[in-house]
């Protein structure tokens, strides 16, 4: 059947469909899809390689990659964080408001203004993360419900603070020399994202914390029996996730030049879950690697950018994204089923 000689040449090794699928499962669907998209786009759409477009894609994928890495950490401990998009919005509002206030009182203290604003923004992530983590770890409430609650809380506070109106008044240095700046021709955001992904990879591979997160997601009771303080580590996972969302919020705000309570939102949250799962994180916990999740964030950004360039109807874009998500999860599941059950 499929064991036929595909090359048509005698003496060459024969590849069966089985082997091909196995090879694909080993490499993963993601790199193949990514390369495919880039190749196709560079042939059909010259604008794809325009400097403006490339910078734009890089920036977009950086925002998403940072949030998705956090989401992945929570997925690894068997949780889920619906509040990341709302944390981005809250961070944006609180940071801009803080900078506005400090700037009003002390117009000369630009450094203090920026520092205060960033700390306030990160504080939002810390607060929401602690709340999420504590409810999940101590009260054993389902992560879905807890983070749905904090999603609404964070969104509400952001809107209350800003009345839904963009907040201006952040120092120009912060916007022009950081948010919109290029270092060696590449947006600052990209450096931050690379740094974040690198740190998370390091955390996962080289630290006890990373190992424990895998262990907890792999089997919580086994981790308990092995003397791992599971509650503490689960809280850390949620805090890291929210704080990474804050980092992304800070970068997006600096880029936009104003604090907005509508930033991030539910779409970013859903994309972060999609990116994490397409990147190989398991919804059952215990599995997930930051570098693959980051790659998947790049892929999603390139994909939506490509579809925009090709003027594909935005409604159609949703259909395509949905199909790719379902396919990614299905292939992951098939791959698991092929393993021998011992």
């Amino acid at each position: 059947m499929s064991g036929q000689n595909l090359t048509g040449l005698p003496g060459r090794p024969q590849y069966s469909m089985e082997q091909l699928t196995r090879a694909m499962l080993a490499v993963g669907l993601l790199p193949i899809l990514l390369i495919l998209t880039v190749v196709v786009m560079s042939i059909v759409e010259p604008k794809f390689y325009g400097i403006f477009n490339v910078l734009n894609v890089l920036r977009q994928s950086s925002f998403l990659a940072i949030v998705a890495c956090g989401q992945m950490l929570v997925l690894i401990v068997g949780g889920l964080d619906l509040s990341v998009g709302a944390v981005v919005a809250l961070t944006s509002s609180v940071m801009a408001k803080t900078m506005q206030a400090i700037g009003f009182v002390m117009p000369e203290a630009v450094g203090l203004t920026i520092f205060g604003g960033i700390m306030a923004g990160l504080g939002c992530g810390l607060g929401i993360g602690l709340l999420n983590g504590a409810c999940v770890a101590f009260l054993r409430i389902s992560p879905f419900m807890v983070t749905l609650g904090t999603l609404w809380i964070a969104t509400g506070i952001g809107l209350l603070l800003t009345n839904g109106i963009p907040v201006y008044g952040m120092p120009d240095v912060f916007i022009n020399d950081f948010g919109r700046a290029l270092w060696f021709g590449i947006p600052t955001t990209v450096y931050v994202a690379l740094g974040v992904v690198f740190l998370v990879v390091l955390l996962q591979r080289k630290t006890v914390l990373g190992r424990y997160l895998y262990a907890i997601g792999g089997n919580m009771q086994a981790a308990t029996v092995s003397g791992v303080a599971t509650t503490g580590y689960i809280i850390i996972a949620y805090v890291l996730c929210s704080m990474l969302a804050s980092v992304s919020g800070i970068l997006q705000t600096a880029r936009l030049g104003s604090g907005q309570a509508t930033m991030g939102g539910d779409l970013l949250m859903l994309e972060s879950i999609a990116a994490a799962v397409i990147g190989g994180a398991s919804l059952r916990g215990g599995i997930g690697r930051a570098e693959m999740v980051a790659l998947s964030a790049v892929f999603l950004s390139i994909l939506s950018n490509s579809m925009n360039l090709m003027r594909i109807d935005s409604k159609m874009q949703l259909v395509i994204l949905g199909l790719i998500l379902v396919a990614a999860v299905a292939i992951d599941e098939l791959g698991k089923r092929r393993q021998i059950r011992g």
Partner: protein
Amino acid sequence: MMDGASGPAVAVERTAPAATAGPRLLELTGITKRFPGVVALDRVDFDLRPGEVHVLFGENGAGKSTLINIIAGTFPADEGSYVYDGREIRRLTPHQAREIGISPVFQEFSLVPDLTVVENLFLGRERTSFGFLSAAAMRQRAEEVIAELGFDLNPRAKIRELSRAHQQMVEIAKALLAEVRLLILDEPTASLTESETSKLFELIERLRGQGVGIIYVSHRMREIKQLADRITVLRDGKLVKTLDSQGVTENELVELMTGRKIDVLFPKIDHRPGEVGLKVQGLTTANHTVEDVDFVARAGEVTGVAGLVGCGKSELIRAIYGLEPLSAGTIEVFGQPMHHITPRKSLDRGVCYFPSDRVVEGLALTRPIRENASMAALDLPQFARLKILRQVSERRAIQEIVDRLRLRPPNIERVVQNLSGGNRQKVMLARGLTRETRLFLFDEPTVGIDVGAKIEVYELMKQLVEAGAAIVLVSSELPEVLHLSNRVYVMHRAHVVAELSGAEMTEQNVLASFFEGDRSIERKKRAQA
């Protein structure tokens, strides 16, 4: 394959030899089943007559479960013929299997935890009238079946609220609810008490009298001797032999099963009781599964805890390790009193616990062997410094331990999911050996692993004790506790009812102490009241 299928069934009837006379209810010929990377069954023949108990015997991974799953229609065989009641069967589904009278009782329960006993019994074959459920009729029928089986079961209870033994009863009742012609029992007594077991055996006798064919999977020699008409031994997916149960000795069966001569299952342990490693006084757990227990384990000896399933013996050592909340009592480890015990503190004091359920409490299945083995030791400088992992050193340490335990294949990067029961247990043991441990708590260490792996676990215990460690061995397998221990505590209904040592350590004495225990517990309760 087609003509081979209908052939033998007819032929047997015609030329039935005297000893193996009678028609076949089930006849499997040349059954082969492959899973990716393994041949689970290799041209296996098997047959079953109406009214006989046919025992399937073999190590874990020998192919017993694959065979009963094929019979029950869970998945099809790749090759071979399946003749049931004279008809060739193809593409059998579990649902069809039940309709033609094949009822399996598997070890993994097929019960929905949030439904009641009645709802579970009738799941998939609910009785209805005019499209509505006939709740009363179903409850009545369920009560009849339960009464007939002599089980102590409340039909309105939710499965979630039942003990494992009771869930097993529901599973058996479910199998017998409809018309049964072929009953499959997969280690049905693993979680039943003595009296429940004897009721089950009465039932099996009755069904046998009614001409039901029974396939019985068990490791327990006593049950096999009591029940079996014939025994089929499988090894590595191949049929070793089908033999009449009369005159078969235990040694013969074990030899057939393992393919090698086993002189001694239990090693001779040289106990040298030294200082007191563990001293427990007046221990009572918060949920009263353990009440007022005094207990001493010394370094250099194995201290056994025997008892039935659910007597509190597992909870006792779980409490010592810090997994069950206490309401009263003191615990001392090597002379040091322990307060507010957590697994972390226990590990720091050199105490290690091996859980009985390796899937639920022991292993992170999606992670590699290395990570599972080092999980409890990442606070040690050998494995991590300043919370940063030292992977080279970790790899070396784990490889060394794994080699010592003779894990095959010795690749420590394999994911635990793909390992057999025996290998999984070795990964658990490896975890215990990563740190300096003076007190080992074993909870049912040989449940679900084959004889070869058992012997290796016993050997390890011998080495540990003779090197001066204290071991507490909790087991429901009486021969295991009695052979390996220097002293045995007998637990019954949350209390320690006897302490046996030397020549007193016999099965009779253990059983006798249950009854005495019953009496003294009643006396105590009356005195309190």
